[in-house]
């Protein structure tokens, strides 16, 4: 029984079968990559996991509980954090404030009316957030206006915001999209470090095979909304069906 169990999920948009009978199992403490050509349904699947979309049929179980019908914030409270393809951070807030918000969410739940207490008086949470910032080497930037940072820093901040919640499952949506090679390698190192340090389960959607093969322990290949194969990276590399799917796309 994996941490995340997707069973027979179907999703149609009008005449388009976006997902057809998807089955997926992500085991605890592994890094599981989902790859596939454009339009394979990777993003749709991800959206079904986090509550943005509801599958037409099938079930999605996380940690023994169904996520279907729950809103994104409820699913986050269950322990799933998501990193977006383009960094989604609170641009009007400082880096430190960006970090504090997930800390509050973790401690107080989805809503708490602390209207009088001062943010400054939350020593414990602040220490926690600073620790995390230190882990991603951003402590010196904590008072910066987050919108004014570089894209790479925004990405690191977003990742830190997800990690500070100590999620059971971290979902990464093309975390290196549009990055230069050096940055990509840095990200890979960061993710590896996180994984080793924190014993965290990661599900990653990625185009870049270099990233996938450096990180993933299991790989699921999606094509036209259906999983083709699921296997270890070594086996996937030479798999004829995978080649066909990617070549088919190229042709």
């Amino acid at each position, binding site marked *: 029984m994996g941490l995340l169990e997707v069973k027979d999920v179907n999703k149609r948009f009008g005449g388009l079968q976006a997902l057809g009978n998807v089955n997926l199992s992500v085991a605890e403490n592994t890094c599981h990559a989902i790859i596939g050509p454009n339009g394979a349904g990777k993003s749709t699947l991800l959206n079904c996991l*986090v509550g943005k979309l509801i599958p037409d049929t099938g079930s999605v179980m996380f940690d023994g509980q169904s996520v279907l019908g729950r*809103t*994104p*914030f409820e699913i*986050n*409270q269950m322990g799933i*954090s*998501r990193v*977006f393809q383009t960094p*989604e*951070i*609170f*641009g*009007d*807030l*400082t880096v430190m*404030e960006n970090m*504090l*918000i*997930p800390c*509050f*969410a*973790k401690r*107080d*739940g*989805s*809503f*708490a*009316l*602390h*209207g*009088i*207490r*001062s*943010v*400054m*008086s*939350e020593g414990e949470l602040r220490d926690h957030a600073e620790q995390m910032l230190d882990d991603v080497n951003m402590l010196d930037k904590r*008072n*910066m*206006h987050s919108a*004014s940072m570089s894209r790479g820093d925004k990405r690191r901040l977003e990742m830190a*915001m997800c990690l500070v*919640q100590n999620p059971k499952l971290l979902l990464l949506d093309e975390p290196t999209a549009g990055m230069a090679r050096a940055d990509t390698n840095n990200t890979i190192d960061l993710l590896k470090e996180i994984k080793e340090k924190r014993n965290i389960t990661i599900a990653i959607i990625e185009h870049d095979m270099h990233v996938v093969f450096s990180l993933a322990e299991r790989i699921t290949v999606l094509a036209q909304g259906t999983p083709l194969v699921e296997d270890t990276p070594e086996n996937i590399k030479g798999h004829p069906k995978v080649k066909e799917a990617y070549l088919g796309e190229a042709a």
Partner: protein
Amino acid sequence: MFGLDKKDASLLLIVAVLVAFAPFLLNPFPEGSAMAQFNAGYPDLMQRFVIFGIFAIGFNILFGLTGYLSFGHAAFLGVGSYAAVWMFKLLSMNVLPAIILAVITAGIFALIIGYVSLRRSGIYFSILTLAFAQMSFALAYSVLTPITGGETGLQLALDDPRIFGSATTADGNIPVPGLFGLEMRDSMELALGGWVFTFNFGYYFCAIIMLVAFYLSIRIFRSPFGMMLRAVKSNQQRLNYTGLNPRPYTLAAFVISGMYAGLAGGLMASMDPLAGAERMFWTASGEVVLMTILGGVGTLIGPVLGAGMIKYMENIISKINSDILHGWFAFLPDGLEDLVVTMIYPFIGKGWHLTLGIVFMLVVIFLPGGLVEGGQRLARLMGRKKAEQPKSAKTEPAE
């Protein structure tokens, strides 16, 4: 001090001092002098300054922090006034129950309207609030006349029950609102040389409440809740995926700001026990938007400044008529005098709306941060002259 950091505490202190000495500060010109026209230190206007300050502070908690632009906030002010006047009619002329009921009623009203309106955001939210407020106005002006007094407004009468107070005063008049025997209109005048300063009990009562309201708003701005509200404005998607539900946060902000409006309405009724439906018209909601923007949206003190500026224009500038103008420029040769008066007249006196519109546009175009930003720019300009300070990237978004 009071759980505020040094900067906020000194801001609060400055505001408290300004408010306490307002009767002096607003009456800088001696009685009877030509400039006395510009004095604003009389009770009614001073009360209005602080009451609309409260209204704008509350509006800013919603608009400044969450970015939700409500175009129907005056409805809560109106509801608050109606509730307060009804308390005066039914219960007693003590202002405390009236103000408390005003806040509660406005809060409930805000909860209902907010619950529905906050299901949408952006322009849709604005239109929804506008629609609710316009409905409130239209109904209050017409079919609800038995409750609201309609066109003439809800006012006190000699035959009101007032179960905990006397229906009439000893000399056969309607009693006036007060606080345990002290009447809101009690005033003390101090004449110093040519100056006359008026210290009005009602003003100081409102001023203390305003300071409390201001203090609370600082606390809200600096609280986790305030931070969440700014996060709502900044990126709702991220907030959702961070495990936070934006809806109760925005609703709480909406209700709190509605209660501020109700408080302002209750105070207005306490200073002047009449509630009119025009208070709820959409242009009245537009006015508080103007105040907040003029002063500086999202800043702590801006809304209060904006409220003061608009009320000053409405009450002082609008009263300058052509005779007064001719008086000012009498020293000029006749033809020139007429010319100058003709050029200025469209903008003041009855043309004050025009000036307001122009000032407002200029602020939105050039000073999106309002008067506060203007002040900061000025200060920075001065500061740079003094010493070439290193440019710091540090900005305080909520200052």
